[in-house]
């Protein structure tokens, strides 16, 4: 299992390098001049040229790429307290430094920007995942058990509605009801204290989670139905096991395998891709940061968010792979 983990880790690093290189090239090829965006639409050519030079954008692509990779991971200074022009935007990783550069627009180190946004993104992703898992598991299982009834048809119809309705519509509705009308929850924002944060995360988590739950409900329903028709389930029932026991101990455990795969992929997406929800609820997460960066042609932030999002997806996949070994004893013997 350890060997398998190392192999996956090594291939993940290659994938990361590929993603960064691709993002770098795409970012360079995009029409528009980042220096012009930094200077503003009305800036004079002399000011744009000076800013371009200051940002190093007047250098050839290969030189910019080489410099980016060179700075991405490099040895730290001898004195750990030294924070000069060279190491001013670094984060320490043992004896090595990680440097994602400085945002063109916000004039702050990208690493600092990403780290400041990561807790909010993690909180929202975890809360949304909780909502979609809880709702998906309960409604999906209930619909499967009551297959063909009005409740089952209702759930199927609602999930269709949930999958097709855009998140902003649901978010606006929740905001209107719970913040504007009832005043139970804050409109938006992140809150100052832990208590405020928990209250603040409810509406965005419900918006994201209910949207995702529709898909999870369908997935769980189909999986449970499939498992209930398997020989092992029928055998357990024939041997006198209660319906509840068969459902919880045998069927749901086998349903977890495909669910874990989806959860792993979804978590990475939720971490950096909750763009509309973050915008609507002014949630200071990575999604909003990445969209602003693309609009403003803020290259270092675009590359930084791509790196974080790819790392999150790869890490989630790695964990999913490893969790297979725990959930499915048959996969332990396979080399992967």
């Amino acid at each position, binding site marked *: 299992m350890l060997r398998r983990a190392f192999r996956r880790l090594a291939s993940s690093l290659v994938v990361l390098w590929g993603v960064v290189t691709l993002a770098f090239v795409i970012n360079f090829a995009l029409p528009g001049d980042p220096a012009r965006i930094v200077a503003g639409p009305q800036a004079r050519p002399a000011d744009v040229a000076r800013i371009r030079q200051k940002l190093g954008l007047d250098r050839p692509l290969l030189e910019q790429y080489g410099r980016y990779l060179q700075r991405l991971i490099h040895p730290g200074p001898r004195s750990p307290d030294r924070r000069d022009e060279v190491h001013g935007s670094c984060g320490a990783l043992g004896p090595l430094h990680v440097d994602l550069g400085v945002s063109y627009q916000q004039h702050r180190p990208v690493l600092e920007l990403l780290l400041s946004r990561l807790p909010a993104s993690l909180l929202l992703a975890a809360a949304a995942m909780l909502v979609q898992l809880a709702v998906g598991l309960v409604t999906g299982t209930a619909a499967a058990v009551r297959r063909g009834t009005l409740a089952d048809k209702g759930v199927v119809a609602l999930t269709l509605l949930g999958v097709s309705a855009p998140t902003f519509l649901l978010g606006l509705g929740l905001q209107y009801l719970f913040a*504007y009308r009832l005043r139970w929850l804050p409109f938006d924002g992140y809150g100052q204290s832990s208590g405020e944060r928990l209250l603040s995360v409810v509406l965005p988590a419900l918006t994201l989670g209910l949207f995702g739950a529709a898909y999870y409900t369908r997935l769980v329903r189909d999986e449970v139905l499939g498992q209930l028709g398997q020989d092992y389930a029928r055998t357990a029932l024939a041997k006198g096991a209660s319906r509840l026991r068969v459902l919880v101990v045998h069927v749901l455990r086998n349903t977890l395998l495909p669910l874990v795969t989806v959860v792993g992929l979804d978590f990475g997406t939720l971490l950096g891709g909750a763009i509309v929800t973050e915008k609507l609820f002014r949630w*200071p997460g990575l999604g909003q940061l990445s969209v602003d960066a693309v609009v403003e042609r803020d290259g270092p932030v675009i590359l930084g968010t791509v790196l974080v999002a790819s790392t999150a997806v790869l890490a989630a996949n790695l964990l999913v792979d490893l969790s297979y070994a725990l959930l499915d004893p048959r996969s332990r013997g396979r080399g992967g």
Partner: protein
Amino acid sequence: MRRSLLAALVLLGGCDAALPGPIGRAGDPAAPPRRGGWLRLASYTNVRTLDPAVAFDEIANAIEHFLFAKLLDFSPDGEGFVPDLAERWHVSDDGLRITFHLRRGARFHDGDEVQARDIKRSLERALHPDTPCPISSFYERIAGYQDYVQRKASDIAGLKVEGDYTLVVELSEPDATMLSVLALPTAAPVCRSAGARYDRDFSARPCGAGPFRFQSWEPGRHVRVERFDAYHEPGRPYLDGIEYALGVPTFTQRFKFEGGQLDYMREFGEADLARYLASPAWRGLGSWDLGRAVHALFLNNEIPPFDQRQVRQAVAAAIRRDQIAAVRPGSVRPASRILPPAIPGHNTAPGQRYDLDRALALMREAGYPYDPATGKGGYPHEIPYVAVNDSFDVEAAQILQQHLARIGLRIRIRAQGWPAYLAETSRRRTVAIGSDGWAADFPDPSNFFEPLFASRAISEEESQNRAFYRNPTLDALLVSARKETDPARRLDLYRKAEDMVLDDAPWAVLYTKRWFELWHPYVRNYRPNPARSEALSFAWIDPDARAAARAQRWAPPLSRGRIARWVSGGR
């Protein structure tokens, strides 16, 4: 289950509730100002930096006016200047020397006195070649600027400190815009702790000599500033502080404004704005700004058919500007001249006029006769029209498409993202026609004519003059106007320049855009400033009116109790 569904339907049915009225009533306008209270406002955009040396977007500028005092400020009528840190100033007869006499006792937020050397240090900090200042070249006529930005000199020779309270600005040639650019936050003195060179960490703890001092900034969430008690105008400001929420969508701003969580609002969705303007409860409240921006379409003088003056004039005469403005009544006003209403020199006389017969005659003269009855003739090729996507430009372009078709010009609209639009339209011989516009960096006519129509604003890439229009007579006129020290004569020169440009038609002027500002009646002493938005530094809040407002705060029609009653079947 059925009851829950019923409750949900009722809740959805409540979405079309009538627009709530203002909170509180207008008090006695002569009432003396009272201290206290936090003023809350919001914007959908975010602040990227609070360092005046590098920030030049509208929201950062509004906040910088709270934090940083300047030598002088634009007068509320937009026609001149009022003292700020400089109690008086004098421009020499030859226009080459401006002497500022600073007031004594003005303090930075950290307690140090503001002295002439601080003004010099701060300007040199902003204009240093290592500082990514977006408007550095505005100051290029200060003597010694070029040597300084080319690292040939360690300071700007034209900034002379004569004692603690006298600063002399020497110019390499007369520049009537110098007072305007010295009134921008870029030239504001920053605390000595900021040092002599730009440091990006300063933005996290900005320190100046403005009426408010920095309290906190959480990017993407809010900026808070609190009253600076040692501000150089005794007794001011009146507010305890100002909270500026960031990244708030316009519809959320409306909800918050109605609920009393915002005291002032400026960013309305079109539908919301129409509701407020139509609401009897809000009649007489709020104010339109004069409009500091003008929108037009540019006609590239180097690309056929717009290299012909008659075709350009025909385009300008074929446009029904009133039809474009009718799409957004209120915020969009038809315009036929270059200078918008808030800019000195604005002329109310009609400029480019709709005259379809003249437009058709001009097309005939240009060699492209067109018969509207048969649809035959006109320019034989389709012309791509570049506009910025997700903007009103695209809607305007759809109307223009029909107007231009009536004179035999067929355009195909190509909507592009902002970066691509800027790159393409500013590249030589690339785009024949497209949307254009300009918002005043400072209220002066030169800020429109020099970047948009002077020959020296043409370059192979990054051209500000997107029409690539050259007129040596105009160039000479603009140089004379820049050097003219008599304000009335200067404005006359710009009027001549405007008439010249309108006649040559490198631009077909379309419309001006203006903002509607609205505030609850308990916010007092707010006078909109034509030179900038949200000039709320000296507003005050009537605590009694606000308290009364809280008591009469609009009660939600669907309370928790009412919901519970619905769900429990009325028991």
